[in-house]
């Protein structure tokens, strides 16, 4: 399944609804669908909020495929080069007063997917993700 989105958070509903119906067609568990929702929400929100320096309309391409016991997701955007995997994990062990509020989205993505890979291809950011459909 391919979803083409504009870089606008108003597109979120369409993204999440698309993933939900696809996941149901594929017979994925509600937990798996919830996690895919969350992962795509985090990635798309990051691109829209931090990826662009101009006010122009850009396109974000999301492909979601089932491959045997895996779901594979590919997100492609023409935002400025950004490898989210280079971000350090947030420190969750510190007391509330010292908790930083940033970096949680990418951390969630890394925790919820089995594999996350970043490449820069022809001026585009490509994030490829895999998650097995079995119980975790």
């Amino acid at each position, binding site marked *: 399944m391919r979803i083409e989105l504009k870089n606008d958070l108003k597109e979120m509903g369409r993204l999440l609804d698309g993933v939900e119906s696809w996941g149901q067609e594929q017979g994925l568990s*509600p937990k798996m669908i*919830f996690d895919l929702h*969350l992962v795509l929400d985090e990635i798309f929100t990051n691109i829209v909020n931090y990826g662009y320096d101009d006010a122009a309309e850009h396109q974000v391409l999301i492909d979601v495929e089932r491959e045997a016991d895996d779901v594979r997701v590919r997100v492609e955007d023409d935002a400025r080069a950004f490898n989210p995997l280079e971000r350090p994990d947030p420190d*969750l062990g510190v007391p*509330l007063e010292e908790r930083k*509020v940033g970096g949680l*989205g990418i951390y*969630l993505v890394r*925790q919820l997917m089995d594999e996350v890979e970043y490449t820069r291809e022809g001026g585009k950011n490509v994030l490829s993700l895999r998650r097995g459909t079995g119980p975790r």
Partner: protein
Amino acid sequence: MDITITEDRRDGVAIVGLRGRVHGGNADTFEERLVGLIEGGERRLALDCTGFDYVSSAGVRAMIVVAKKLKDAGGKIALFGVNQNVRDVLDITGLLDIFPMYEDEDAALKAVR
């Protein structure tokens, strides 16, 4: 689906009902409502999460801000009726210690009183 926030009071505790999803598009509203309650003088909050279906990192950030405000004000917060998916997100992001969770309203009220 968006988030609907309702407010109720019982035994001196503000019971805040959350229904729907908190994500990047509405986390600000969610944060403002809860911070507004604290700034308005509420010190004991119980969040009814029975209809709270979804939270992303934007919602988690808002919850951390709320917890800090409340702690600074010397208040207490508890959650009840949290579904497993939302609980997992709070667990991964290290919020279980900050937001104690209870089975039902009575237990949550007892914890913050």
